[in-house]
C-alpha cells in the first residue's frame, strides 16, 4: 500500500476534525484540512470540500461553534472552535474507536482453531 492515500469515511472525518480542534484550538476550514493532511503524513486522501460538510454537521449537533474573525494576514475568515459538548463527544468517540480497533485487531489476529 505504501504511499497510496486511504479514503476516509464521513464519520471518521468528523472525529479527525474534532481532534484537530481540540489539539490546535480555533481554526478555519482550510487550516483544519491542511493540518489533517500534514499530521497523517499525507496518507489521507482528503477532498477538501468535504470538510465543510463535516463542519456543518458538527455545528448542527452543537459540538463546535463558529465565528467570523481575522486571520494572521488580517484576512477575514470563519473560525471554528470546540465546545464543551464537543469535547465530551470527542473523548467518547475516541474511546469507541479504540475499542473497535482492538476488537477488530483481535479478530484479525486470532489463530486458526480457536
Amino acid at each position, binding site marked *: 500500500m505504501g504511499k497510496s492515500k486511504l479514503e476516509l469515511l464521513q464519520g471518521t472525518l468528523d472525529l479527525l476534525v474534532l481532534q484537530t480542534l481540540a489539539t490546535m484550538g480555533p481554526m*478555519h476550514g482550510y487550516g483544519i484540512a491542511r493540518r489533517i493532511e500534514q499530521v497523517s503524513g499525507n496518507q489521507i486522501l482528503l477532498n477538501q*470540500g468535504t470538510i465543510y460538510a463535516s463542519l456543518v454537521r458538527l455545528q448542527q449537533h452543537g459540538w463546535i461553534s463558529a465565528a467570523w474573525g481575522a486571520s494572521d494576514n488580517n484576512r477575514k475568515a470563519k473560525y471554528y472552535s470546540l465546545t464543551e459538548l464537543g469535547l465530551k463527544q470527542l473523548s467518547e468517540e475516541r474511546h469507541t474507536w479504540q475499542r473497535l480497533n482492538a476488537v477488530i485487531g483481535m479478530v484479525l489476529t486470532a489463530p486458526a482453531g480457536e
Partner: protein
Amino acid sequence: MGWLRFAFEKIRALAGRDRLDRELDEELKIHLEISTADYIARGVPQAEARKRALMDLGGIDLAREIHRETRGVPWLEGLWQDSKYALRALRNDARFTVMALAVLTLGIGANTAVFSIVNGVLRRPLPYGHSERLVSIQEVIPQLAHVAPVLPVNGRHYLDWARNARTLESLALIRTAELNLTGAGEPERLQAAKVTANLFDVLGVPAQLGRTLVPDDSAREESRVAVITDSLWRGRFASSRQLIGQTVELNGAAYVVVGVLGRDFRPYFRTSMNVQSAGKYQIEVYTPWKIDENEWGWAGEHNYACVGRMKAGVTPRQVQAELDVLQAGIATRFENTGKMDLLSNVTALQDHVVVGSRKELLLLLAAVGAVLLIASFNLGNLMLVRALARRREAAVRAALGATRFRLASRSVLEGLYLALSAAGLGAVLAYQLLVWFRISAPSGLPRADEVSLDWLSVLFAVGVSLAAAVIFGLIPFRSLWRVHPQEALRAGGRSATESRSGVLLRETIVGIEVALSVCLLIVAGLLVNSFRRLQEVDRGFRPEKVLTAEVSLPATRYGDDEKRRRFLSELLRQLNEQPEISSAGVSSLLPLRGQIWTDIVRPEGDKRPIAELPIVPYRAVSAEYFEAMGIPIAAGRSLQESDYPRLTAVISARAAAQIWPGQNPIGKRFSRAMADSGFFEVVGIAGDVRSAGLDLQPEPTVYSALWARVPRTAAIAVRTRVGPREAAATLRKTVWSQDPLVPVSAVQTMQEIEDDSTAPRRFLMMLVAGFSLAALLIAGLGTYSVLAYTTSRRRQEIGIRLVLGASPPSVAWMAVRQGVVPVVIGVAAGVAGALALGGILSSLLFEVVPNDPITFVAVTALMSAAAGMACFVPARRAAAMDPAETVRYE
C-alpha cells in the same frame, strides 16, 4: 436534548438557505485564497497554484452540493420542491383543476352530509344520561297481534313491574295529553305529558333552570307544578329567568313552573303505535301524575308509554324475560276475557326510536358513496391522461436518476392538494346541506333536528377525501411505474403506443363506473316507480279542496257530552251555511295522521269472551263527515242529525266483512267494550279508507254517531268550493263567533296531511334519484373523455386506413368499438348487481317488485343512450378526419 437542538438546527438550515449559501461561498473563496497563497509561498507560479488549490478543494460545485445536502433534510426539500411543482401544474391546467375540485367538493360534501345524518340519527347516543341503559317497554298480546303487534302499557301492569322487577333500576310511566295554555297572551294548545315524578331521574337529565320533578310532587297528591321545555321557554316566555315560581294557566287550572329542561332534551317516548307520528310529538309541558292503582282494571286500557333504566350489565333481553314472567302472573287475573296471553316487548330506547329509518339511511349512504366512487375513478382516468402527456418529462427525470418515489410524488401530491382542498370545501358544503336538511327533513325521520356537523364528520370528510386521493392518485401512478426512458424519449415519442395493460386499466375503470351508475339508476327507478304507484292508489276519500282543523273544547266550560254536542252541532250548521263551503263534518280522528283509537265490537247476542271479539278502529263522526271527505256510502245511508238521540253507526266494507261475514249488516246492532254504552244500529256501509297509510291496507272502521261519546278535541273537515286555504279565515271566524276562547289549531289541507304522510318516501326517492342522475352524468363524461383521448391518439392509424380506402362509417365504428365493450360489460354487471340487491330493497318498495322488468329495461336504454351520446362526438371526429392531414402530421 441533543436531538432537539439538532432538529432546531435543521429547521434553521431549511429556513435560511440563501444566507447559508452565501456564507459558504464566502468561506470557499477564502479557502481558495489561502490555499493559493500557500502554494505560491512554496514557489509554485500563480496560475498553477490556483489550479492546484482548486483541485485540492475538489471542485466548488461539489463542495456546495454536499454542504447543502448535509445541512438540510434532502428528502423533505425534494418533497417541498415537488409540491411547489404540483401546485404550479394545477394552476396552469386551470380548467382541469376547477372541474376536479368542483366534482370532488360535491362528492365529499354530499357524503359528509349524509354521513352526519346517519351518525346523528343512528349512532349518536340519545340526549339522556347513560342512554345505552334506557329501554322502551311495551306490551304484547299474541292473540291480538294481527291488529296490533305491540301495545302501549296498562297502568296497573306498570305498577306491578315497578314493584317486582329486579333487572330494572327504575321505571317511569308517561301519559300524553293536550292542554290549553291561557292567561298570558293568546291561548295556545300544547302537547303535554303527565308523568310519574321519577321520569327525569330515569332519563338522567337535569334542568337548566330550576328543578325537574321530585317524588314529593306526586307522593300524597298531585302538585300543580309544571316543568317546561327549552323551546317553550324561549318561544312563549322569552327566556325569562324570572319564570321559575310563577304560575301559568293550564286547562283553566293554575300551575307553578318549577323548572326548564335543557336545550338538547327530546321526548323520545310515544304512546302511538304508528311510526309516523313519532316526529310530531313535541311535548312541551310535563306535570306530575299520581298513579291510583284502582283507576284501571287488569285487562285492556293499554294507553301509556313506559321507559325504564336497566341495572348495570343487564341486557334488554334479560329484562324482557323477567317481565314476561311477571306478565304471565298478571294474565292469571284476567276475568271474562277468554284465552289471552300477556307478554312484553323490551327494546333499547335508541333502537326503538330509529327503527324504520335504518334501512333508508344506509341506502342513502351507499348511494352517495357510489357517486363519490364514480367521481374518483373518473378523476383517476383524467389524471392518467395528464400523466401520459407528461411521460416525456418523467422519462427525462428517470434518466437523470430520479427514484420512482420522486417520479410518483408529483402526481400523488397533486392528488393530495386536490383532495384536501376538496375536503375543506366539502365540509363547508356539508354544513350548508345540513342546515337545509334540518329545515326540510320529513317529519317521519326521527332525530332529524339533532343532526349536525361534528368532529367525527370532519374526520370522515378528511378520510374520504384521502381515500379518493389514493384512488385517483394511484391510477396514473401505476402507469408511470414502468417508464422506459428510451422509448419515451425517441423522436417519434408521440406515436408510441400505450402498453396493453394501461388501456385495459382505463377500460376497466369505465366499466366499473358504468356498472355503479346502472345499479344506482335501477334503484332510483324502482323508488320512483314505487312512489308513482303510491300516488295513484285508491285512498278511499278525496283530499282535493278539503281543509281541516282541530278545535279543542276546554273542560271548564264544556264539561259534559251534551254541551260539546251542542257546540259542534251549531258549529257545523253555521259552517254548512257558508257560501265557500259545500259541506262540513267533524270526526274524532282524521286519516293519515298516525292516530288510532280502537275498541271491541260486540254484535248483539254474541256471548264470546273479549279475546275472541273483533277489535276495530273507531271514529266518532258527524252526519256530513262522509260528504266532506268524499267517502262514498256503498249501501244503506249515512248518519243524519235527525238520528239523534238514537245511537247509529256506519261501518266500512271491511269491517262488515270482518264482523258479519256473508251477511247484510244493515239493521244489525252491536255494543262496545263498555257494556253500558248502549247498542248501536248499523245504518250504512262506507267505502274503505287507507287511514293508516297510503302504502298500507285500508283498515276496517266503525264510524259511530258523534253524540255517543263526544270527543273533547274534534277534527273539522270542510270541503270547499274555492281553494281550501282561502276558507281558513272563514273557518276560524265561524268558530270564534260562537266562542272566542276555543283554540283552533292544526289548520291544514287534507292534501298537506297526505303529503306529510308520504314525505319520507318522497324524500328518499328524490335524493336517490338525484344521486343516480349525478352518477349517470359523471360516468357519461368519463366514457366520453376516455374515448376522445383514445381516438385522438389513433389519428395516424385512422388516417392511414382512410387513405387505404376504408369508409368513414367503418372507421368511426372502429374508433369507438373499443369504448363500447366496457360499457356493455358495465351495464351487464350493473344489472346483475341490482338483481342481487333486490331482496334488500323490497321492504322499501310499494307494489313494485325488485326485479321489475320495466325499470331494468328503461335504465338499460337510458345508459345506452348516454353511452351512445358519449361515443358520438369522438366517432364523428374520426369519420370527419382528413386523411391527408393526419398522415402529414408528425
